[in-house]
């Protein structure tokens, strides 16, 4: 700041310029001093030309007047000097005031800068703290992720184990299923065999009954006859019958044995079935266990998480107790700990409040900083304006100075002219001879005047140049100062302020657009939902597909029911000779389906028949229209023939008896028959002749 003050003091053009200006009038006055010598020249000439008392008196008068003049000039000069001094003083005071104002402004700027710096440092510390906490958080997250990964791996392993177990069980299940299928096939086969054998047994029992009946009859006949009188043939028959009975009984025994064997096999298969159902149950149990295991796994994970939380709490508690130990080694009661905890909680709350307050303060400070930055920029602008004003005032001052000098010069010249005029008027009356001398004098005077004016204009030019140079220096100095300012922290602070303002604006914009985005997203979702709801796809409940599906489903349920009941029957009683009702139902359903199929086939057949009949009729019509006869095939092997020229009458051809009768009422019927059929053996020609005759008859 000292440097700055030096710079500002040195750079100020007010200190240099008045000094530069002050000597100028003196210089000019010094330069003007020779003028009285110039003006004194004519007096010397007078003295040389008039050597008397009167000239002496004149001289004295002149001297006294000159002295008076000199005094007045001196007085005027003093007055002017005093005035200029006063003006200079005033300007200096103004300059000092402006300097003071500038200093205060600079101090303010410095203060603001310091404040800003402090805030920036605070921000940095907060940011660094934030970064540290972020790092901590990241590390925690990393740890948690690692743990999670480990858990995932464990879960994966468990899943793999579960899958392998499942696949094993499924393999076993498929094996059992295939076994079951085989068993079912065998059961079916055995059932069929049993049915066949049962039929055989029934047949045999029926024959047995018949034989019993026969025996009974024989017995009855024996009783009736009372005297048995067997023939050898009858004996033979009886013996054969006995043999047959024996064979049949043997066969029955064999069948019973086979039946027992099959029953044993069935038992075995049932046992296998039981084992398969047992395996199934086991599988289900295992699946349940796996599910339980999964739930347990979840529980385990939760417990692990909880454990971790508790561990962290425990470590915190340990740290806390260690701290307490540091303070009080011997008397740590749980109550103390709780009290301490409560106190710490309260403190924590207070600290949270303070933190929030500080945050609020921070935000306020930020706002204040922004405002100060704005004010600072305004002050800088004002300062710039002020400097410009000072420069303008200096220019004005300089112009006034110049005008003052010029007016002094003018005054001098005018006085001189007045004196010359006085001299001229006093001397013109006395001496006409002196006219040329006076002319010379006048010429000299004019020349002097010209020289003087030239000199003055030269000086003015010089002064202008000096002025311009000094202005350029000022401008350069000001530029340097500006550059120094911009290179300094002020520029950066200003830039930071601007950036902060921009940042806050951008944040606000971002918030606004995020809200807008959220709003639009919700609207879009609503619209999508609305669109989804708008259309409904419907179908007739009673459609062909549904019917087909219904039939299939019904068949499936019936078959399942049948299967279930057959299995239960087989398990419950081995020697049962009946079938469950579901078998009947399923067969009935199949029958119905078959009926439907038959109905469809019939329908198809009828339609085909219709088409055929239609086509046949078309064909017959075509034939009739071409040949002129309509044929009607009767079921009793007769064919009726109608002529198109007499449709109400007809001929009948009996194909069985080979006859031809007619009710056509044609006169030469027998002749025509004789000629064309019997003699020439041509029915078409006979029919053609008949047609011709009928046509002629119809025409007539």
């Amino acid at each position, binding site marked *: 700041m000292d440097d700055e003050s030096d710079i500002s003091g040195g750079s100020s053009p007010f200190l240099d310029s008045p000094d530069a200006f002050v000597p100028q009038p003196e210089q000019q006055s010094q330069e003007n001093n020779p003028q009285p010598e110039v003006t004194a020249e004519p007096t010397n000439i007078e003295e040389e030309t008039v050597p008397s008392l009167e000239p002496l008196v004149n001289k004295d008068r002149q001297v006294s007047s000159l002295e008076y003049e000199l005094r007045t000039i001196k007085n005027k000069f003093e007055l002017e000097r005093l005035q200029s001094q006063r003006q200079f003083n005033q300007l200096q005071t103004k300059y000092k005031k402006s300097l003071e104002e500038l200093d205060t402004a600079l101090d303010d700027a410095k203060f603001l800068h310091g404040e800003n710096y402090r805030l920036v440092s605070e921000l940095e510390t907060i940011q660094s703290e934030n970064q540290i906490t972020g790092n901590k958080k990241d590390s925690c997250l990393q740890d948690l992720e690692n743990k999670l990964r480990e858990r995932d791996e464990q879960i994966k392993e468990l899943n793999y184990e579960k899958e392998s177990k499942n696949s094993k069980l499924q393999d076993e299940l498929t094996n059992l299923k295939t076994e079951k299928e085989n068993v079912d096939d065998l059961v079916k086969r055995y059932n069929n065999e049993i049915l066949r054998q049962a039929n055989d047994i029934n047949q045999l029992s029926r024959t047995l009954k018949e034989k019993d009946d026969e025996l009974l009859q024989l017995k009855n006949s024996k009783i009736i006859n009372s005297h048995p009188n067997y023939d050898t043939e009858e004996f033979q028959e009886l013996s054969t019958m006995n043999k047959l009975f024996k064979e049949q009984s043997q066969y029955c025994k064999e069948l019973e044995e086979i039946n027992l064997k099959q029953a044993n096999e069935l038992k075995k298969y049932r046992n296998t079935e039981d084992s398969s159902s047992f395996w199934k149950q086991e599988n289900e149990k295992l699946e349940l266990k796996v599910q339980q295991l999964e739930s347990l796994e979840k529980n385990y994970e939760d417990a692990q998480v909880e454990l971790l939380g508790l561990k962290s709490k425990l470590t915190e508690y340990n740290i806390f107790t260690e701290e307490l130990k540091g303070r009080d080694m011997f008397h740590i009661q749980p109550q103390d700990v709780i009290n301490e905890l409560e106190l710490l909680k309260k403190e924590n709350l207070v600290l949270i409040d303070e933190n929030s307050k500080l945050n609020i303060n921070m935000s306020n400070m930020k706002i204040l900083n922004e405002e100060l930055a704005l004010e600072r920029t305004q002050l800088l602008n004002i300062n710039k304006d002020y400097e410009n004003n000072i420069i303008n005032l200096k220019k004005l001052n300089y112009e006034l100075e110049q005008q003052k000098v010029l007016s002094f010069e003018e005054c001098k010249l005018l006085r001189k002219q007045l004196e010359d005029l006085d001299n001229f008027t006093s001397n013109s009356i006395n001496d006409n001879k002196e006219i040329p001398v006076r002319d010379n004098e006048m010429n000299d005077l004019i020349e002097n005047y010209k020289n003087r004016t030239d000199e003055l204009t030269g000086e003015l030019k010089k002064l202008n140049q000096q002025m311009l140079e000094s202005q350029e220096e000022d401008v350069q100095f000001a530029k340097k100062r500006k550059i120094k300012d911009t290179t300094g922290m002020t520029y950066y602070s200003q830039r930071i302020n601007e950036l902060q303002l921009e940042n806050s604006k951008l944040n606000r914009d971002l918030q606004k657009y995020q809200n807008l985005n959220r709003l639009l997203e919700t609207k879009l979702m609503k619209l999508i939902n609305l669109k989804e709801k708008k259309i409904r796809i*419907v179908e007739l409940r009673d459609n*062909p597909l549904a019917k087909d599906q219904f039939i299939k489903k019904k068949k499936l349920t019936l078959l399942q029911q049948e299967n279930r009941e057959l299995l239960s029957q087989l398990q419950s009683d081995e020697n049962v000779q009946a079938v469950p009702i579901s078998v009947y139902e399923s067969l009935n359903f199949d029958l119905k389906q078959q009926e439907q199929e038959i109905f469809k086939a019939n329908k198809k057949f009828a339609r085909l028949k219709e088409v055929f009949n239609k086509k046949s009729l078309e064909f017959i019509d075509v034939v009739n229209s071409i040949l002129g006869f309509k044929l009607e095939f009767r079921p009793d092997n007769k064919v009726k023939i109608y002529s198109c020229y007499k449709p109400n009458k007809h001929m009948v051809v009996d194909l069985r008896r080979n006859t031809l009768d007619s009710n056509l009422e044609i006169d030469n019927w027998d002749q025509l028959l004789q000629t064309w059929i019997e003699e020439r053996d041509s029915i078409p020609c006979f029919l053609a002749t008949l047609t011709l005759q009928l046509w002629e008859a119809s025409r007539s």
Partner: protein
Amino acid sequence: MSSGDSISLKGSTRTITEFFEYSINSILYERGIYPSEDFTVVKKYDLPLLKTHDEELKQYIRKILIQVHKWILGKKCTKLVLCIIDKDTGDVVERWAFDILKMDYDNENGDDEDKDMASVKIDPQETQKQIRSLIRQITASVTFLPELTNEGNYTFNVLAYTDAYAKIPLNWGDSSSKEIENGENVQFKSFETEDYKVGAQVSYKQSR
């Protein structure tokens, strides 16, 4: 809506329903869903078209079309879909979709262009011509559609896309869209009545 408009709407709806009847019959015949002897030739749109005389099928189509007619009159139906389904697998092998687009000429908020179009009356003969052309396309599509190999083992179902707030009778129920995944689509021509524009398209499985 004036009485003239109402008559026009009824006429348009009848035309559309009639078209649906003949197109459904044609598709069922061409794709062999029902045996050919169940169909008889009738002359419609100056074309010999096939129409079923199987009472059950006739009844089913009639039931659908009566309801669809009502929905179209009430501007509640936007699409009619005929799905051909494999009985064994339950897969949709072909999906014939008919889009029904309502021409909102009488919309007061509509553009000037629409209002200009409102004045354009569509000649019924032109509509008939367009329908003829569309039915010819449907008939000809048999040439490029994949063969339905499992003959006699296909059934069909008709789906109607209605407004969510449309009145649905009790004998109608909700259904899935029965879309064919990664199916090939073929867009057919469309026809216009004074009130509606009907477009058709078929989607089918690429390889069977």
